């Protein structure tokens, strides 16, 4: 019985740490209804796999479970190919989200979905390569490599999307070298 109480306490501690960040993670990538369903799925997995959850930094592990929960939802409902499109539409029409950087958004949308996801995990979830590796079930080295390339690709697209800014930089550069 004591072990039951101890288990509940451990779960409640983890849940308190991940509850709100998980909502953000899921709502960045799914509709509110799907996010709510996935949140229950993730917490259920945390409860069932409590011994496998890293107690100090449970979030990357939970993001990994959330990622699979969303993937399962997409497969289960046979609509996985439409979700990204729908999410993009919803994100851009969400009252909480006012895009004030269309050049960056356009450049980001030109990257592959896996590059976009890497950059989201890095910038939105504020994860480091080691933590992203836990989410994506790969190695930190592979993440570092892919992240470096994704950033370079984004910056390259951005230079093309954002000629005004690039032009400003060029002008400044030219002026600096004037006698």
């Amino acid at each position: 019985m004591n072990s039951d109480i101890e288990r509940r306490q451990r779960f409640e501690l983890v849940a308190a740490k991940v509850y709100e960040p998980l909502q953000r993670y899921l709502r960045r990538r799914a509709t509110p209804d799907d996010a709510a369903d996935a949140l229950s799925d993730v917490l259920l997995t945390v409860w069932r796999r409590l011994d496998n959850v890293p107690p100090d930094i449970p979030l990357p592990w939970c993001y990994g479970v959330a990622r699979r929960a969303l993937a399962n939802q997409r497969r289960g409902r046979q609509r996985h190919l439409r979700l990204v499109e729908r999410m993009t539409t919803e994100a851009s029409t969400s009252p909480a989200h006012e895009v004030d950087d269309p050049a960056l958004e356009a450049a980001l949308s030109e990257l592959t979905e896996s590059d976009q996801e890497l950059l989201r995990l890095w910038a939105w979830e504020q994860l480091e390569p080691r933590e992203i590796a836990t989410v994506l079930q790969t190695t930190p080295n592979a993440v570092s490599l892919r992240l470096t390339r994704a950033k370079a690709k984004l910056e390259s697209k951005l230079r093309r999307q954002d000629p005004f800014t690039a032009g400003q930089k060029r002008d400044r550069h030219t002026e600096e070298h004037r006698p």
Partner: protein
Amino acid sequence: MTDELRNRLSRLDPMASDVPTEPVTTESSQHLLEEIMTTPNLEQPGSSDSPNKRPWIAAVAAAAVVIVAIAAVGLLSGDGGGDPIAATPPLELNAGGEDIMASCIAFSVEYLAPMPVAFEGTVVSAVGDTVTLDVDTWFKGGDAAQVVLNAPQGLEALIGGFPFEEGTQYLITASEGNVNYCGFSGESTPEMRAAFEEAFGS
């Protein structure tokens, strides 16, 4: 520059910290947690055969794809966490040599659709005769996080194939455990992805 890019990207976040989420302390949150804690704890640590995996195993066996459990993904991740539900072993396929599409029938969605295995993945390593891809999207035939392609004759010996580069995303189909070439697998392009979506989408 990196910090600047990260900050700039974070400003696109539709769920930035000023967007409210439901606190864990609300009545409905507590109700959800309580409901979960009344669920029986079915899994034992280290259990390797969760019910979640069974449909996938059946589906892939039906597709006659060779699966070799070379390593649990948890081990590859290096975090030592050993998440049992993450332990779906990588799908292993043969690449190169005389594949069944060697006669190179004309590419069409009609021929693409019956392929038993189709996914989009990013190459995380291409070393020796082995290419490892992280799966970004499963269209058909699996749910492993990674797929390993073996080219026993070496990657250079691929007939009608294409080079695999780390960090690049590919669309791959396979039949009978072999990767198909001749346009039925290749580097991911918007046109090819559209064909995959048409062939395997809902």
